[in-house]
């Protein structure tokens, strides 16, 4: 799948979007680059009305993408009485930070839920990386009978969602004695993230020259030593991408397993813990929104800084949405 391969091999430091574009241009015509530059600048030149149309389009697009967050944030700053009043006003009439104070008493375990979300995603990431690195190496380097079939099986398994397999998974968790523990969310959560990660890392590892393995082999290094000392360091950027994609997958999708396999408040991750707000006679929306923002903020900030890895991971590993 060379379309995907092209992007899996980006150096860790480069912005994948920019790097892909420029490297393609460089590869195709290294010599005439200087001559082409004015043409390239001209081709990207817009009339003022085109620029206006582009910005207008981007504004509409980003409004669609961001409006729930803007509205959610403004709701968290409105007093409850104002929320439940008409006519509707987008901007708070009186600003109030009460929700950010009261939420800790409305949902006493809120801090725990925030931690749980982070903890569950982190353990899932560790498990997935530990399992995926050797498997991806095996698929990338060795040829054995039935390999293609096995890889196909992994990818096919990836297409079934946890929601479909909920009944047998529930029975399995029960007979393993994992219900109402962290593992009831961690174990199935990791399983559905493994196949796509294998695919992604395998693509990356296939770009590491085989000669390196062979040189180590000639020097008398064992296979395990070669993997640990030669391949692992070189594959590190790819492993980082896999780890980040896995973390986001585990973080964004923790709902159904947590809803079905765990009923203990102290183990609930944030999305399910926030259900407590719905249990009251009236949903305390401003606190729900405040708690959501506080809960996701730390992870969001980290992820924004890592966004270039997301693009690399997404384009290389698009076996699952």
């Amino acid at each position: 799948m060379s379309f995907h391969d092209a992007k899996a091999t980006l150096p860790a430091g480069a912005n994948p979007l920019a790097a892909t574009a420029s490297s393609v241009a460089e590869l195709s015509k290294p010599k005439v680059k200087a001559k082409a530059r004015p043409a390239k600048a001209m081709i990207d030149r817009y009339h003022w009305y085109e620029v206006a149309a582009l910005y207008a389009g981007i504004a509409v697009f980003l409004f669609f993408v961001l409006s729930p967050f803007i509205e959610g944030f403004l709701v968290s700053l409105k007093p409850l009485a104002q929320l439940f009043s008409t006519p509707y006003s987008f901007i708070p009439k009186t600003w109030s930070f009460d929700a950010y104070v009261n939420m800790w008493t409305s949902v006493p375990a809120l801090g725990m839920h925030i931690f749980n979300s982070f903890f569950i995603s982190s353990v899932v990431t560790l498990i997935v990386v530990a399992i995926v690195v050797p498997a991806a190496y095996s698929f990338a380097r060795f040829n054995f009978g039935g390999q293609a079939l096995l890889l196909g099986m992994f990818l096919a398994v990836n297409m079934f969602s946890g929601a479909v397999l909920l009944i047998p998974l529930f029975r399995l968790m029960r007979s393993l004695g994992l219900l109402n523990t962290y593992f009831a969310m961690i174990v199935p959560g990791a399983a559905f993230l493994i196949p796509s990660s294998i695919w992604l890392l395998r693509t990356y590892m296939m770009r590491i020259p085989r000669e390196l393995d062979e040189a180590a082999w000639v020097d008398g290094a064992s296979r395990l030593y070669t993997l640990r000392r030669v391949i692992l360091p070189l594959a590190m950027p790819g492993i980082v991408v896999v780890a980040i994609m896995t973390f986001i997958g585990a973080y964004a999708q923790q709902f159904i397993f947590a809803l079905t396999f765990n009923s203990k408040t102290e183990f609930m991750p944030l999305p399910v813990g926030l259900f407590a707000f719905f249990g009251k006679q009236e949903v305390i929306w401003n606190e729900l929104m405040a708690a959501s923002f506080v809960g996701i903020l730390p992870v969001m900030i980290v992820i924004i800084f890592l966004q270039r890895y997301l693009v690399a991971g997404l384009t290389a590993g698009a076996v699952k949405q």
Partner: protein
Amino acid sequence: MTSSRSATIFALALLAPALIYILTIVAYPLVDTIILSFTNASLKAGYDFVGWANYQRIFGVGNFTEVIVRTFVWTFFSVTTKMIIGMAGAVLLNAAIPGQAVFRILTMPPWIVPMAIGIYMWSWMYNGQFGMISGLLQNFGLVDGPVAWLAYGHTAFWATIVTDVWIGVPMVTIYFLAAMQSIPKDLYEAAWTDGAGRFYRFRRITVPLMVPAIITMSLLSLIATFNSFDIIWILTQGGPSGSTTTMIIDTYKTAIGSRKYGEGAARAVVICIFVSLFCLAYFRAVRKLQQGEAK
């Protein structure tokens, strides 16, 4: 390196943890679903095999075919809209204008926040009395009174689609954007030299070269959307009166809600059959595209 027996053993040993994990947590439940679908399993311990009774029941009585059709309609509109908005977003974010980098980052939040939390925000926005959508429409005089989007069958149906699109769009956009940027620049320059306008270049260069990416993403999105659970469950729980009950919601209600494991499993098997068909289509498409590229 030698391709000896020891190499094969080493390769399999590296693969073993992944294989065992997937066999236990995904493949075994898959088989178990099929077995359960022929039983009358429930909350009680033990069960009996009942042959095709579950399948006869779900296809015989009730509205299962209606649910299937609804699932396909829901999925179709959601995937199509995602592709169109994703393509438009990619074109906009690809334009060489100041602020480009920031706009790209701002596209990502719906994808990386916990899905459930994004959906809570939407469920407030859909609130008829006090929510933003109804509120703004009233303020601008576009509707006369409050519109409780999730309270009526047809509006709830479209509301759940809009939220599903919202969650899917960032990923589709970024994926299309990356594909767009891997198109060699000199194609555009050659066309530009020949006097081709911007729209002409888009239609004759960008779109044809994006076809593989569009096909790949459509099929992946189809599978993900078909399996979509969180959005509908949080917004409507399949209501009002079943108008947003897709196959996956239907299965969840039967199995987890009513504790009819056997019948729920039969419904799950039908989903699995559809997903397998989509899967086959995906693999075939990928292989075809690869062959096309190799030529």
